[in-house]
């Protein structure tokens, strides 16, 4: 797979050829996107560089560019060319050069506050007007620090100082963006700091070409923004695959033994590995999946991961593969076991030969040139922005846990001769009970988002859920399922309407997370008992065919119902006579222990 050069000078010199090469890569599939760049400076060079980095991420962008410094006019007033372009993303490419009004030495604190608010309000207006017209996400630069300080060091503390003013604007902008949806701040301030402020500010480039910063910094900024845009369009990586020896500890565990590897604060090398492990642990905590791909005996790999000074533990990994097979094959296995694409993986290995092999045989996997200096791994992975994210949700943190638990279940399933033995080994326990107030929100959410395992695809409001729970003519049942790997939470719901001595199933659904565990049989058992207790003699149910619920077309048959009627549209009516002879369906779940 073709990759872009790291050297920014090469990048600028050769960008036409690079573009040609990226577009001619036969293996690439590009998603088209229309992106409007509304700039406070000349943005052509930036556009060229951004285009290349987006191509590298699989996005083929069409661009609209505002005239120089017409970002405000294009945002706020109707512009037929921009309207016709109909952007799917707008970039407000501004910089410190676009700050309209700076505090003066005679301004009071209150006046400076007003100046700052007015400055931010201008962008707020741009966002609102753009959103009204295009309803698309907006990426907005914040401000880099100025190139000089009229008050010297006091510039960052005095309310009239330029440095303090920029910091204030950036904080205000972050708050303003945080309180609205669809606005994403591009941290130009951090870009400039990384690049080095004295290298960044180039007054000749401003006066000659109206460039916001040194032309050589452009690829760096474009790369950073491309990562953000990739995240916006859901194209960032999900999983960090790690080698072990000389990657997350110093030395070779198989040769040096647990006591011989370098990991811990006593030595500079050991401390640097700890620092790298801490970084990996932080990635794990915010929702990046971890995997091991190492040439090692499995028991040695695990003992290294349990090193007393270590930070990441075996249980933090969604998948651990340590054997003597080729890494390119093992990486495929990792992707399979986690059920994610190879293009979701980042592979880190100190060994250049292994890196090359993986690049060659798994071109979708990204393999950074981390070198062989552990103290540089963190920065190299971080700057590449593989795991750039828009924000961190609770779901992200839980998702990791569920992946890890599910992949453990899969590994376990592979080790049993029969699926029933596997299910028995999971030691499943379920709480199956009538709806309760604490679960109304979750039940409402589940009813409205479950598509596949859903008998009738009925949707409802939260008020409906409350009403049904209190209605004596309804049977409501929810199920929570846990097993030895963890709690899956509330994942299934059944509702039936009672009329006379007949109950009709109105709704039966289950989250895909717990499919094929026999939970539907455990619920049936509870439903039958409930019907019996109420003296009912018949259960009726209809399978209502939808675009997505083929999965449950035989559910009622499996539950013991008999077919009554087939409708032309594919719906089927079923019934079941309730008597003492009915044997409850077999499952491996301990119900309400």
């Amino acid at each position, binding site marked *: 797979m073709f990759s872009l050069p790291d050297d920014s*000078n090469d990048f600028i010199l050769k960008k036409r*050829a690079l573009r*040609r090469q990226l577009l001619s890569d036969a293996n690439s599939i590009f998603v088209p996107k229309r992106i409007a760049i509304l700039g406070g400076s000349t943005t052509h*060079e930036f556009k060229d560089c951004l285009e290349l980095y987006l191509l590298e991420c699989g996005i083929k962008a069409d661009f609209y560019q505002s005239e120089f410094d017409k970002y405000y006019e294009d945002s706020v007033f109707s512009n037929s060319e921009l309207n016709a372009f109909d952007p799917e993303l707008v970039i407000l490419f501004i910089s410190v050069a676009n700050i309209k009004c700076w505090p003066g030495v005679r301004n009071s604190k209150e006046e400076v506050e007003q100046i700052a608010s007015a400055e931010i309000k201008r962008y707020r207006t741009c966002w609102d007007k753009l959103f009204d017209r295009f309803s698309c996400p907006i990426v907005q630069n914040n401000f880099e620090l100025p190139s000089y300080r009229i008050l010297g060091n006091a510039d960052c503390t005095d309310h009239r100082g330029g440095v303090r003013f920029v910091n204030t604007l950036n904080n205000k902008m972050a708050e303003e963006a945080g309180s609205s949806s669809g606005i994403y701040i591009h941290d130009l301030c951090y870009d400039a700091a990384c690049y080095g402020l004295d290298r960044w500010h180039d007054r000749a480039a401003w006066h000659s070409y109206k460039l916001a910063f040194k032309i050589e910094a452009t690829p760096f900024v474009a790369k950073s923004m491309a990562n953000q845009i990739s995240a916006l369009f859901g194209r960032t990586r999900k999983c960090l695959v790690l080698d072990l020896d000389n990657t997350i500890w110093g030395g070779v565990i198989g040769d040096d033994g647990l006591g011989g590897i370098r990991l811990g604060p006593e030595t500079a090398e050991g401390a640097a590995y700890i620092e790298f492990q801490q970084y990996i642990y932080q990635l794990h905590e915010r929702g990046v999946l971890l995997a091991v791909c190492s040439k090692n005996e499995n028991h040695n790999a695990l003992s290294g991961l349990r090193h007393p000074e270590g930070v990441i533990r075996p249980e933090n990994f969604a998948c651990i593969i340590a054997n003597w097979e080729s890494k390119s094959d093992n990486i495929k296995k990792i992707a399979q076991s986690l059920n994610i694409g190879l293009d979701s993986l980042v592979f880190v290995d100190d060994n250049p030969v292994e890196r090359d092999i993986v690049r060659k045989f798994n071109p979708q996997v990204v393999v950074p040139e981390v070198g062989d200096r552990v103290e540089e791994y963190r920065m190299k992975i971080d700057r590449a922005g593989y795991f750039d994210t828009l924000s961190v949700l609770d779901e992200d943190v839980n998702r990791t846990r569920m992946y890890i638990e599910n992949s453990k279940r899969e590994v376990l399933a592979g080790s049993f001769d029969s699926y029933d033995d596997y299910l028995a080994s999971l030691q499943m326990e379920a709480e199956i009970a009538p709806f309760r107030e604490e679960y109304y929100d979750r039940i409402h959410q589940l009813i409205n988002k479950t598509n596949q395992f859903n008998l009738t695809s009925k949707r409802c409001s939260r008020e409906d859920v409350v009403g049904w729970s209190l209605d004596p003519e309804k049977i409501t049942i929810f199920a929570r399922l846990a097993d030895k790997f963890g709690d899956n939470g509330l994942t299934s719901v059944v509702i039936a309407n009672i009329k006379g001595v007949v109950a009709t199933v109105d709704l039966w659904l289950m989250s895909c997370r717990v499919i094929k565990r026999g939970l539907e049989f455990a619920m049936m058992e509870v439903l039958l008992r409930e019907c019996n207790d109420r003296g009912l003699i018949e259960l009726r149910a209809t399978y209502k065919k939808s675009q997505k619920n083929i999965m449950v077309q035989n559910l009622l048959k499996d539950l013991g119902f008999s077919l009554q009627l087939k409708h032309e549209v594919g719906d089927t009516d079923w019934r079941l006579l309730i008597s003492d002879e009915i044997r409850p369906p077999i499952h491996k779940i301990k119900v309400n222990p």
Partner: protein
Amino acid sequence: MKSKIIEPIEGIFREVFDDPNLKISEKTHSADVPGWDSLAHMSLVTSIERHFGIRFALGELQDLKNVGEMMALIEKKQ
């Protein structure tokens, strides 16, 4: 002397315009090269500055619209 520096300049032009057969001479003017716009000019100037280890002054940049003038300036600054 002049023939010595035209070679790397031609190399830079070929890279920037992505044309391995592009020929330039002292007489080449911006109007003679398709795509030599202000944006390409920026790339040319940046790459030439880097290659020869020189910086053009602000006042010099506007007039650099033909190769002969570029060469004269480069020689003066080297």
